[in-house]
């Protein structure tokens, strides 16, 4: 029982802020007489979908020989079709604005269907060599299919998947597993990450300006910035003791631009990414200066300097919550 909340609810009822019905309802919540298991149901669905998709992947991997390509391909396609049939049956009409999910399962079934399409497409491409030497284009095709589903069904999850597939087509991982960004000789991946990141940001600006799925902008913007700044940070750190001036300058320019633009547009998430990238760049520079003890003075002063910058900037953002 949450006594303090219960007392507060009673107080609010006595002052007329809450109606009797509201106070009675919130009183039940505070006493623990009414409990929502909504989050648990979502987590169970999330884990369930992850396990099914993982199981399908393992099936393909382990039983390639025994089952044969047609059986596996058709089986996964059937499962995907069932998922998408459910989605098509229960989907609300299309809108360029946000659309609420009609059921708890909707987002997850859609995600599972799209994931199964991806598994099937990759499998069939490998088995039948449909695209020949242009095999990586199946990732682009997959990304386009996913974009279509994301826009039709207003799904941020499928949009994130589409962005990840598009980045994968260019050889870039959108997860922390993408440590190849930091490898010394992987400049091509980093350049691709810069380009893909810039493209995502441009797409974010486009959807926002046109007002068509404008609520997708944070997904485009955050993942784009993550790639853009991540590539620059990776480039600055990839020199193994030697500071790569081109990448360092790129990082400095990008983080300065991000901080400035985020500050002007009052976007705290972008501002945070810019500050972290700038801070990492500063640390990289500090370690290159061979200051010995001075390094610690510099890092300590830098940390508190960034702290004051953050608190100063926050006053402008005036962000609550």
């Amino acid at each position: 029982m949450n006594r303090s909340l219960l007392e507060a609810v009673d107080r609010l009822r006595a002052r007329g802020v809450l109606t009797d019905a509201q106070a009675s309802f919130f009183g039940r919540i505070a006493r623990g007489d009414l409990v929502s298991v909504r989050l648990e149901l979502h987590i169970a669905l999330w884990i369930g979908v992850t396990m099914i998709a993982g199981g399908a992947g393992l099936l393909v991997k382990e039983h390639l020989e025994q089952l044969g390509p047609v059986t596996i391909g058709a089986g996964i396609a059937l499962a995907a079709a069932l998922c998408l049939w459910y989605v098509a049956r229960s989907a609300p009409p299309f809108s360029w604005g946000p659309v609420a999910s009609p059921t708890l399962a909707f987002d997850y079934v859609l995600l599972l269907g799209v994931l199964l399409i991806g598994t099937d497409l990759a499998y069939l491409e490998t088995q039948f060599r449909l695209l020949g030497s242009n095999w990586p284009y199946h990732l682009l095709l997959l990304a386009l299919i996913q974009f279509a589903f994301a826009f039709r069904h207003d799904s941020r999850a499928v949009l994130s998947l589409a962005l990840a597939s598009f980045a994968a087509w260019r050889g870039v991982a959108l997860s922390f597993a993408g440590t190849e960004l930091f490898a010394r000789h992987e400049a091509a991946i980093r350049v691709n990450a810069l380009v893909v990141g810039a493209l995502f940001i441009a797409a974010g600006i486009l959807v926002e300006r046109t007002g068509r799925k404008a609520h997708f902008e944070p997904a485009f913007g955050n993942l784009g910035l993550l790639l853009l700044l991540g590539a620059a940070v990776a480039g600055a750190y990839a020199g193994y003791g030697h500071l790569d001036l081109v990448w360092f300058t790129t990082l400095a320019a990008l983080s300065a631009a991000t901080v400035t633009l985020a500050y002007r547009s009052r976007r705290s998430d972008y501002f945070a990414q810019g500050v972290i990238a700038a801070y990492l760049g500063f640390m990289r520079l500090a370690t290159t200066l061979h200051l010995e003890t001075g390094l610690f003075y510099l890092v300590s002063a830098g940390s508190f300097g960034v702290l004051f910058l953050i608190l100063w900037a926050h006053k402008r953002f005036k962000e609550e919550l």
Partner: protein
Amino acid sequence: MKPAWHAADRTAELLAAARGWRAAGLIDEATSGAIAADHVATGPRLGSVWRILVFICVAIGGTTATTIIFISFGLRNGTGVGLTLLLSGLALAAITDVLLERCSFQPTGAEAATSLLAAGYLCAAAFALLDDLHLGERLTLHLTYPWCAAVFALAAWRWGFRLYAGAATVFALLLAAQFPGARPAWIAVAALLAAWSSVLGATRDLSPSHRGGVELVRIVALAAIYAAVNYYSVDKGWLEEIGRLVGAPHQRAGDLSLLLAGLGSALYPLALLAWGLRSRDRALIDLGIVTAALSLTTIRFYIHVAPLWVILTASGALLAGTSLLLERWLRAGRDGERRGYTAAPLYDEGRRERLLPVAAALALAPSPRILPAEPPGAPGRGGTFGGGGATGTF
């Protein structure tokens, strides 16, 4: 905790609840505004992004500042290092008090960083000073663990950070595992802590932060009991390994211990679930589900029931199907609830709900192709599929 912090804590809890009710559509904007006007917070809140940034800056700044002290004074021996850590820890504890008392923003992230550094330094100081006395590794740990438990418990009580209550519980359990009969001692300490926190939570009017801390102690203690009765843990002698001296033989579990562990693995999660469902305690229900899943995984480890892909697919389908049926069943009840449970949002669950599918999507995204130079017209090298631990190539 000072009385003013208690009051601020309760106000923050009510305002958070009001925001949650508003987000869930249970009250309108006017009522939400009236509640906010009626309960003025001690200061504006920093958003989570800002708090994380401030935490990182203060943590790095504080750590490097301490390193500067070490370097400047040329401290190398245990006493010097220990005393410096002790003094720095006390200074940081005082700074945490000042931040909580004076800072116009509540919380800022800075007090979390300084309190963490303070507690960490005080724990490390005890270890360094005791180690310098050459008491032997075992005695040093026997003295350090209770000190750490006390430091974190005090930090949780003073500043209200619930994670520190959990850390204190872990140190108390680690101490129990240092003695002969580690497993029964571990279970006894965990059971005592679980009973104490259950009684305290049910009978005392605690501030929200302290209530959260006591709740975490209970959950950590109950999870620790499961760690002690799990079949795999007994079979591998995990708890006995914690206090085993270097060179001492590994302890093998007897048949009776394994039989009891088998029963414990099966019955304990069910008992937790039953307790949680009966008392409408979400934390207990969640713990029951997690321990049940761990018990099923343990069975899979010892008994080959079916191929992994069958297990994954069937369990996933069962889990997803059950949650959907459960949601329908709850929604179909009177006022969308049954026996005090509902699938409707009561607070601001929406944000986390929206993030879950995105996390699933990114976890299951296809692996990127490998870029290095492919000569024009080179044959395909295969694609990738899966994710979520099942990524592979063919």
